[in-house]
């Protein structure tokens, strides 16, 4: 984590120059990539994360299962429901909680809304990196309607602490259902416009077609997940593979693309949003009546045991490995975040590319430094 932006000639070859990209680069964001360049080509790249490491896993060992809720959503504020979703599933499994159906549906609604909020941010910045300024203004603006949607349910705009062990924190107000359905209808039309202005745009195609191609075999070997895996022909989606929280009640499909390039990764995010809108609409329409949470108390008794729970977050598979020794606090809590799973793909893709392609490839992986560092 040396802060100085070095630029020195490597002793072994006069042609190779090593440069730092980040951690202050406006696009990299708390993250550095060390690059070894031969002229305009990247010979070798080495990611250097850790600038925003806060020790969330150690913090969790000092707090009980309910106190852990608010700080565990901090690593992924764009996608804060999905990181708590996996945590809640893990604790529910340890405690053998049977979540009321209405609570399960509300968990799904909130987590799909967060998927849209996170993917919109991703498309906004990806558009900006490709020199397509319309995308950042449109996506950032439209994203706000989904933040409003989440605010009506969770009461906050970014970190809601809405999904908790035992269910969800509060019920959905009736007007939020009506307004939410309107948001869904409006957003379907907006996505058609994104397709016209961004995904069918010849400039965007020229900028991202064939840039950073990840083959299917490499995606498996490197452990890629989420959009990165699905854009490379891997049909992996925890929601379908291992339906949790009533996902089997909803009709949606896993979109798999085979190009494996930056364009496919961005398009895969749009297809994911289309499915998310479908799921939200179905869940709002057939929301069953009943309680939304179990009464657990401020310090629930968690029996000794071990659990590995996972969900499909906006960036890919979010997993928790929790070991409980029967005490009020977790003995060990490991967060397996999708950004950490996709990080190994970055040096693989950057080898041999032009310097100008680095932002498109880097952001194409939808890597979030804060999430990786925890």
């Amino acid at each position, binding site marked *: *984590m*040396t802060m100085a932006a070095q630029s020195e000639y490597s002793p072994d070859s006069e042609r190779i120059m090593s440069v730092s990209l980040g951690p202050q680069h406006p696009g990299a964001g708390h993250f550095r990539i060390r690059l070894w360049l031969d002229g305009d080509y990247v010979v070798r790249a080495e990611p250097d*994360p*850790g600038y925003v*490491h806060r*020790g969330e*896993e*150690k*913090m969790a060992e*000092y707090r009980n299962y309910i106190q852990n809720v608010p700080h565990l959503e901090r690593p992924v504020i764009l996608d804060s429901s999905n990181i708590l979703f996996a945590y809640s599933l893990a604790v529910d*499994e340890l405690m053998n909680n049977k979540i009321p159906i209405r609570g399960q549906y509300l968990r799904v609604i909130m987590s799909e809304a967060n998927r849209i909020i996170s993917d919109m941010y991703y498309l906004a910045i990806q558009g900006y990196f490709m020199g397509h300024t319309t995308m950042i203004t449109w996506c950032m603006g439209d994203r706000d309607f989904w933040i409003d949607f989440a605010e009506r349910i969770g009461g906050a705009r970014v970190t809601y602490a809405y999904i908790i062990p035992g269910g969800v924190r509060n019920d959905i107000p009736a007007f939020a259902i009506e307004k939410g359905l309107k948001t869904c209808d409006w957003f379907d039309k907006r996505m058609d416009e994104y397709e016209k202005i961004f995904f069918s745009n010849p400039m965007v195609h020229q900028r991202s077609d064939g840039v950073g191609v990840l083959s299917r075999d490499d995606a*498996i*070997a*490197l*452990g*890629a997940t989420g959009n990165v895996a699905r854009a490379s022909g*891997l*049909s*992996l989606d925890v929601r379908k*593979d*291992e339906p949790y929280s009533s996902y089997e009640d909803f009709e949606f499909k896993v979109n798999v693309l085979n190009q494996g390039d930056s364009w496919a990764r961005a398009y895969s995010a749009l297809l994911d949003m289309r499915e998310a809108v479908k799921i939200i609409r179905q869940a709002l329409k057939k929301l069953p009546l009943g309680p939304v949470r179990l009464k657990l108390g401020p310090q629930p008794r968690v029996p000794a045991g*071990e*659990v*590995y729970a*996972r969900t499909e977050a906006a960036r890919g*598979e979010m*997993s928790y*490995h929790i*070991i409980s020794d029967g005490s009020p606090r977790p*003995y*060990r809590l*490991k967060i*397996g975040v999708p950004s*950490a*799973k996709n*990080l*190994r793909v970055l040096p693989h893709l950057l080898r041999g590319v032009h310097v100008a392609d680095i932002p498109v490839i880097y952001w194409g992986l939808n890597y979030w430094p804060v999430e990786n*560092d*925890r």
Partner: protein
Amino acid sequence: MKERRLKLSMTPSRIREVGLFARDTLGFDHISTVSGVDWIAKNQLEVDYFVGSSTPGQEDFILAFSELVARDNPVVPTLIDVWKGAEYHERETHEMLGINFQGHPNQNHLLLPEDWNDLPPLRKDYVSPGR
């Protein structure tokens, strides 16, 4: 652990063999994460590899390979040649729990500062500042 999860415990000397068999014969080729636990009362450290599968029909299955090593000399073989994606996960387990992955190409700090000269922070005898 629940259905479709299986945790296998083995000695560090056998883990590569078992991992290769699981990858090539059983189709567990997609590394999910690597985790570690400090069992301070038993004076042991545990390393867990959580591996999923891209084979149709068994994507919901997670196989965990677990090995226990002595706390004062925690040396295990690296499994990068089995699951390439384990590289950064192992590096993180090295810095957080002080496990030495033999054959790993780069065990420099990933998340911790370069000048960290305390115990590995996820060991139970490391106490966070202010606690």
